[in-house]
């Protein structure tokens, strides 16, 4: 090869390599700056969306398409419980005015509380009860108690806890469905979401009522999550990015984590960290066309998980080396959430600005759990949430 051609080919190799990398694995990570006050304000705006979307029956708008200006039919009681839980988190973070809205949604759940097992479950029909709805209702009541100090629903909270305990099998696995007619858990049905939700609820029960033995059950399920769940339930690419398990680790860290919990916390931190890092690269062309931005719920979940793990790292020195990187990833993810949230001015260009402002959209659609998880993530990132009773 002649000298000129060789130099040209070397230059092409260098420029081509760099360009190829810059458009893929080496795309810039866009982590905007957001102050704690801005994160709190974004969480408040999400709470305001939930409040505006609530109907007279205490339910929320489930899904809204801003382009078609259409509210989708259908509802999901697990998400109802989850959204309500996030409102009580907002109340804990200095927004007591939101309790009225949350209590209206809580009334829906209390009206649908049915005897199940040794306790009670939040149900939508008289044939079966699902673990997740009851777990998140229990979590909502725990957050409410921490926010308000009001103990009027302690009996219901404990009853929900007893139902959760009844769904635990040997080995710490949790069954997802209870047969209300047959009065027994249905074997072999599990949920990747509900087990962590239930573990978190039971851990909160222990932190609220430390002398009642809830910690034993919470630990059994956390042990299962940390050591066996991904394999037993066939979840690919472990660890599954389970922010409920991360919340549980944060709650349990106050009593002392075992070595396998610490390992699990590390693996979850690695997974959530990767997800937020990759998300922060999606503002650079052409990545958004190859892999669209995550939903508000997705990014919110990752920030929730990272924030909860940061809380665990703060109280356990074996995770001390993760404090700085976790803090950086939490701030990055939360700032992305705040940046992607439409404000009032942006909302006014749509047909129903009140259902646009403060919500997170993907393909012009938002679902109520987008606001739930983003709100929770923003509060965790703003340093407003920790274990209940803390």
């Amino acid at each position, binding site marked *: *090869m002649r000298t000129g051609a060789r*130099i040209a080919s070397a230059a092409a190799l260098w420029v081509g390599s760099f360009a190829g990398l810059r458009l*893929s694995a080496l795309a*810039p*990570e866009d982590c905007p700056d957001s102050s704690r006050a801005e994160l709190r304000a974004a969480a408040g705006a999400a709470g305001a969306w939930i409040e505006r979307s609530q109907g007279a029956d205490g339910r929320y708008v489930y899904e809204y398409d801003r382009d078609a200006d259409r509210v989708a039919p259908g509802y999901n009681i697990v998400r109802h419980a989850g959204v309500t839980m996030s409102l009580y988190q907002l109340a804990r973070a200095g927004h007591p005015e939101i309790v009225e809205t949350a209590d209206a949604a809580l009334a829906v759940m209390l009206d649908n509380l049915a005897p199940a097992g040794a306790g009670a479950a939040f149900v939508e029909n008289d044939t079966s009860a699902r673990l997740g709805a009851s777990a998140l209702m229990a979590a909502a009541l725990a957050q409410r108690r921490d926010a308000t100090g009001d103990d009027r629903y302690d009996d219901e909270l404990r009853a929900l806890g007893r139902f959760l305990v009844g769904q635990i099998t040997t080995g710490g696995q949790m069954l997802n469905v209870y047969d209300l007619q047959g009065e027994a858990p249905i074997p072999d049905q599990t949920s990747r979401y509900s087990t962590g939700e239930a573990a978190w609820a039971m851990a909160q029960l222990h932190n609220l009522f430390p002398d009642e033995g809830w910690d034993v059950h919470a630990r059994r399920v956390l042990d299962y999550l940390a050591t066996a769940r991904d394999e037993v339930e066939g979840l690919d690419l472990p660890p599954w990015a389970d922010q409920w398990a991360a919340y549980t680790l944060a709650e349990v860290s106050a009593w002392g984590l075992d070595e396998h919990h610490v390992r699990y916390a590390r693996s979850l931190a*690695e997974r*959530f*960290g990767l997800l937020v890092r990759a998300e922060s690269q999606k503002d650079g062309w052409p990545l958004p066309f190859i892999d669209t931005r995550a939903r508000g719920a997705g990014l919110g979940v990752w920030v929730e998980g990272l924030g909860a793990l940061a809380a665990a790292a703060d109280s356990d020195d074996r995770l001390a080396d993760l404090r700085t990187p976790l803090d950086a990833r939490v701030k990055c993810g939360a700032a992305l959430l705040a940046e992607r949230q439409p404000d009032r001015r942006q909302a006014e260009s749509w047909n129903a600005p009140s259902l646009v402002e403060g919500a997170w959209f993907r393909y012009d659609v938002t679902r109520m759990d987008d606001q739930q998880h983003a709100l929770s993530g923003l509060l965790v990132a703003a340093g407003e949430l920790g274990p209940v009773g803390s």
Partner: protein
Amino acid sequence: MRSLLALLAAVNPIAVAVALWPRERRPTMAAAAAIAVAVAIVCAGVSDPILDALDVTLGTFRVAAAVVLGIAGARWLIVGAPSVAGEGPGGGPGRVVLPLLIPVLLTPQLVMVSVSVGADEGVAVVAVGAAASFALAWLATIVTKRHHVAWIAGVRMVAALAMAVALALAVDGVKTV
């Protein structure tokens, strides 16, 4: 240890020797190797400003370095190390630049691995790793060689090492919080 292996794999001293087959003059090769070591050290020294300028974290850069090293390894594995000994001037400073530094010694994988290891473990590790790797490259280049086929097999063995190190680097990058 893995960082040293990464630098060795990025240089691939056997591929250097095969690309410059049959042999290179000692002073010419020494000058080129010294410049390449210096470039690796400079890359390591400015690794933090490079990451800042690119707006990426170390975990992301590790993955990118792994991609580049993996591609280089795959290329060596598939096509070996084509000879460039006949290119450029026959001797003198011009030969240091072409074909020694370009295209044999200064490669994208050397720069990427040097920046990654430099940001991760500091300049000293890169200095040691690069100096050792280029010393081996110098030695392999100046010795009288026979059995070309055996040397090509060596290129492929180091290529396999490069791909294994790239995989480990990628996993490490993916698992960085």
